[in-house]
Each structure stands twice: as C-alpha cells, then as structure tokens.
C-alpha cells in the first residue's frame, strides 16, 4: 500500500497528475480558449488520459504490487500515451462541450498545461490527508489566478471539487457542463444507459442528463433492476488501482447486464467508458459525443 501511495505522491509532485503524464496531451484539445479568466473549464485531464489508465493500473494494482514495477513506471509511462484515435475522441468530446457552452453564451477560459489535477483519485482511495493537501494547493492556485467559477466535464472531478470545502477554505463556484448546456441536436435511435454513480447518487445530476437525452429524441431502453436509481451499479473503474481483477470482474458483470437491454450504450463518464468498453458487445458512446 505504501508503495502505491508513494507512487501517487511522486507523480503528483513531478507531473501534477496521479500518473506520469505529458501535459501537452492534456491541453492539446484547446486552441482558442482564453488563458485563465474568472470562469474556466476544468478537465483534470480525465477524458484525455483515461484511455491509458488500464495499462497503468496493471502495474499499480495492489493485488500484484511490487516496488520495482512502480519505480520503473515513471520512465515507462512516458511511452504510454493514448492512441491517436483515443486522443481525437477525447478532444472532440471536450470541444463539443465548449461549443455547447458557447451556444449558451458561456465562453470559458482554460489553464492549458497549468491546469491542476482535481485530486479525485486520492479522495476516492481514502487518502484524505493527501487529498486535503492537494486541495489546498489547487485552491490557492485558483485563487491566485482569480478564478471564480469552474465548469467540470466529468463526475469524478466534479465530485472532488465540490468536496474541497469540507477539507480546506474554498469559495470557487463549481458547476458541471450538464447543468449549463442544452440538447440542440435531434437524434434518432435507441440506447441503454450506464449511469455514473457519482452523478446519479451523489451529485444529483441524474435527472438533468436524462432530461437532455430525452430532449434530443433518444429513446432509452431501461430496466428497473439494471438502470434504476437505486439498483444500477458501478462500472468497477474506481477500484482499478487498488484491485484490478475486482474492477474487471465488476465491469464484465455490468456490461453483461447492460447488453441484455441493448447493443448501444450511453455513458456519462470517461472512466465508465474505458472500463466498460472491452466488455460491452456493441457501441459505447459518451453523452457529449452524441447529443452535443
């Protein structure tokens, strides 16, 4: 356990991310956004880097941990980059979000390579002291940059930032893009849906994105025991770093359940997308790829 913690700490100190990451990969999607500003989009590099997390978690899962692998990971990870196809998809999603915000009259800035990590992984792993320290740094940085409002694009970042105030003084407004955009495209088609646990059961955004989906014209194939608010379950992704086998087992079972409803799946979270895709037979799409 201690080696995993050291690895995360080392990565955060060196790369400002929980994994060794080339920050150019994180910021490459944005070309014409203002640098900084009172309102910024906050990606936490989630959509951009998540495609390589399963590879990294193979090394770091505590079920097969040994210090040598972790020490070697920093140099290895420079070589572990998302494929061009994966990067293009992530960049398209983020641009879809920004364009949808602009259509609503919101022109966010962006911190590009200076954008910090939210600390979500620390929070979710229970490294609360490390999370508090990280939150303090991010809060201070946002304050220094004059940021008053951040717009998050994924549930894990949204959850982490909305919880900063429990740990450190933090008065930046945190909103999620789903609260701001509208479904302007008309889509024909049927999907089933895998809800984000955080959006659905912690952040009260489940009804909001369902409203957007419904407005777009998409019909959702649902089953009370599979996609209900209280009965749907996690994709397994958040546990990958701690126990990859368990994460995979949860993902496999979840994908099988969802496949009984449709071979087209909508997700609202980059971790869910990456975790479920290898197990789901059919097409998996992020909501921001489809309705924006």
């Amino acid at each position: 356990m201690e080696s995993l913690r050291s690895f995360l700490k080392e990565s955060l100190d060196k790369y400002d991310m929980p994994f060794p990451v080339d920050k150019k990969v994180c910021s490459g999607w944005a070309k014409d956004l203002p640098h900084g500003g009172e309102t910024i989009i906050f990606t936490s590099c989630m959509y951009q880097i998540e495609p390589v997390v399963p590879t990294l978690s193979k090394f770091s899962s505590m079920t097969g941990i040994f210090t040598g692998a972790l020490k070697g990971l920093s140099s290895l990870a420079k070589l572990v980059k998302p494929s061009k196809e994966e990067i293009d998809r992530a960049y398209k999603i983020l641009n879809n979000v920004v364009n949808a915000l602009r259509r609503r009259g919101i022109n966010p800035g962006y911190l590009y390579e200076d954008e910090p990590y939210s600390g979500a992984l620390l929070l979710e792993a229970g490294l609360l002291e490390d999370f508090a320290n990280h939150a303090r740094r991010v809060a201070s940085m946002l304050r220094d940059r004059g940021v008053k409002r951040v717009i998050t694009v994924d549930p894990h970042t949204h959850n982490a930032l909305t919880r900063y105030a429990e740990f450190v003084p933090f008065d930046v407004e945190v909103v999620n893009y789903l609260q701001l955009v509208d479904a302007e495209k008309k889509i024909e088609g049927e999907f089933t849906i895998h809800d984000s646990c955080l959006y659905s059961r912690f952040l009260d955004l489940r009804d909001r994105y369902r409203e957007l989906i419904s407005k777009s014209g998409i019909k959702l194939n649902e089953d009370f025991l599979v996609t209900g608010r209280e009965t749907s379950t996690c994709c397994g992704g958040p546990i990958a770093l701690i126990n990859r086998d368990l994460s995979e087992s949860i993902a496999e079972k979840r994908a099988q359940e969802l496949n009984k409803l449709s071979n087209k799946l909508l997700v609202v979270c980059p971790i869910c997308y990456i975790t479920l895709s290898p197990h789901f037979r059919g097409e998996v799409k992020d909501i921001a790829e489809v309705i924006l």
Partner: protein
Amino acid sequence: MTWEIAIERTIRNNVPRVYNVLEKYPYILELARELREAKLEVLNNLESYVEQTVESVKRIGGVPHVVGNSEEAREVVSKIIGDRKKIVMGKSMVAFEVGLREHLKNMGKEVWETDLGEFLIQLANEPPSHIIAPAVHMSKERAEELVREALGGLPPNSTHEQIVARVREFLRDKFVNAEVGITGANAIAADTGSIILVENEGNIRFTTVSPPLHIAVAGFEKIVPTLPHAMMEAMVQAAYAGLYPPTYVNLTSGPSSTGDIEMKRVSPAHGPKEFHLVLVDNGRVRASKDPDLREALLCIRCGRCHLHCPVYRAMDGKWGVPPYSGPMGSMWSYIVFGDPKPSLLCTHSGGCKEVCPMKINIPKVLEKIKARAWS
C-alpha cells in the same frame, strides 16, 4: 458459477419484493425515520442505556451480563451452560462474531443451528455470506447435495420444499430435547429489558421457549429506548428484508411464569426457567464516540445494502470479515475486528446509502475507514 446463479436468483426474488412492501405499507418509512432518531439517542448515551437495560433485565427476573470482548462472551456463556450438553441456536450474528458455536463444539457440546441458512452453512462448515441469508451463496442444488450427504432421505432432484421438510424432520427432536437455546436479538428495550426477535421459520420461537435455559447474545447497539421502539425495529427490519409482515415476532421479557394459582406469580411455567442476556461491546462503545463511525451502529441488519452493491456481488459474498459482509459488513469488520482493509474495495457505487432504512451514508463511513487503512 454457483454464486452467480444464486445471487442472480436472490436479487430477482428479493429486490422487487422490498419495493412492493414499502409501496404497500408506506407507514414503514415513517417508522424507519422515528427508529433512526431513537437509535441515535441511544448512541449518544450508549453506556447509560446499557446500565438501564441491565437494571430492567434484573427487574423482570432475567440475568444480565455485560462483556467487553469475544473471549469474555465465550467464558460467560460457557459458565451459564455448565454441564448441559444439548444446545440449539437461533440465528445470531453476534454469536458468530464471538466464535460461540465453535467454542461450544470444542467443549464437547452438541450444538445445532436451527435457522435453515445457518444449518446449511454449519453442514458445509462455511462462513455466512449474507447478514440475514447466511447461505445465500448456495444454489438449491448445492443445498440439496449438502442435506442429502448429511441427513440422507432426499430423493434425486428434490424440490426446495422437500429439502426444507427433511431439515424440519431432523431438527424436530433437537428442539424438544435441547437443554439450552441460544439466540441473538433484533432489538432490546432499555425500559423493560425485553428482547425482540423477528423470524419466519418458527425456529426462534422453538429455541426461545422449548429449552429450560434461554441465552440471548446481542451487541450493545441493539438497545433502543422503549419497547415500542423495539417492536418498530422488528417491523422495519422485516420490511426492508422483504419479508413483511414477518411470520413471527417473539417478545421475551425474562423467564416464563404463571399467576394462575391464586394470582401468585411463579416461575418457570412452560417456557424457560432462566433467561440470560449477554450484552457484547467488542468495540461498539468506542465506535459510538467516534463521529466517523457512529452512524454504522444504526444498522438494523436488514441486508438490503448487500444486494445493491457491485463489490459484494462480484466477490462471491466474501467481502468483509465473517459474519459481516457487504457494505455494512465492511464497516463492521473494522468496528468489531479492527480490520480496515475491506473498506478499500468500496467503489462508492452508492446504492447502499440509497436503500438503507437507517439512511447510513455507508460510502462516507467507508471513506473514513479507508483513510485509517492507509495510516
């Protein structure tokens, strides 16, 4: 594969049933809210409520025992039992927590679990996989095989009914001839010293009435302020377990007695001559004073959170330190056994907190326990 079949069938059978119960009997929701408040009141003054319970049990002719840990619990129960040999047990997770059955067997006692699920795991020598359905990991086929091997007398491809009938036949004599009945308690009323046990099989009624000695072993957190609160806990627990109305609710207030001759109250009558209540701490007082953990003590053991948890489902019921499994068990593994590691596997799926009748924010409690696992 057995687990996957069994849990799939369990979810399909149980989860919709709980929703139906709650829809049909909406007053349960109000009772659950009231019960939560009453239990919080106890947790804020746990030691004082233990004292009050002790006095109440004495007043009704019972014998209270307050023990700090598992070893003390085993010692006290052994002393109460003395030379008696034949023991029947009604499902008690705290008895498992303190290692009672194994201890008594090692002392040469003849001990039989009488709850069907507990009986099956006793035959299989396996730990319970669910807080109220301890053999939930077994398919019908596995249960059939176990009963056939141990007791014989089952035709090929026996039905659920035939398996249950064979166990009923086998246990009938055990109830009648038992010298000691050991149960847990769903709730304990501090004001009257009464215990409440909710069940459907009838085994607990037998266990509490047939033997001359009844010992109830329960955790401090089962104490509620008054007898109406104890009845409330039975109703809420049964409803959230999907079995409402429960077939039996057993109320025991001390040994049996009669006043039928000149209205002079004498004891015993047909039921037990002695009633002992063993109240177990095992970390509960410490948890009640810990703001990160206190909420976990509100758990009424309905087992609903298990079936809404992807980790429990994926780990074949083996998440937590037996007898505590699943989301609640992950909290209780730390409270009772001091093991924080199960908490690390929580994915904060969150279904547990949504369906918990006591509104325990289980992922939040587990988050705090995770932090202790790292330190």
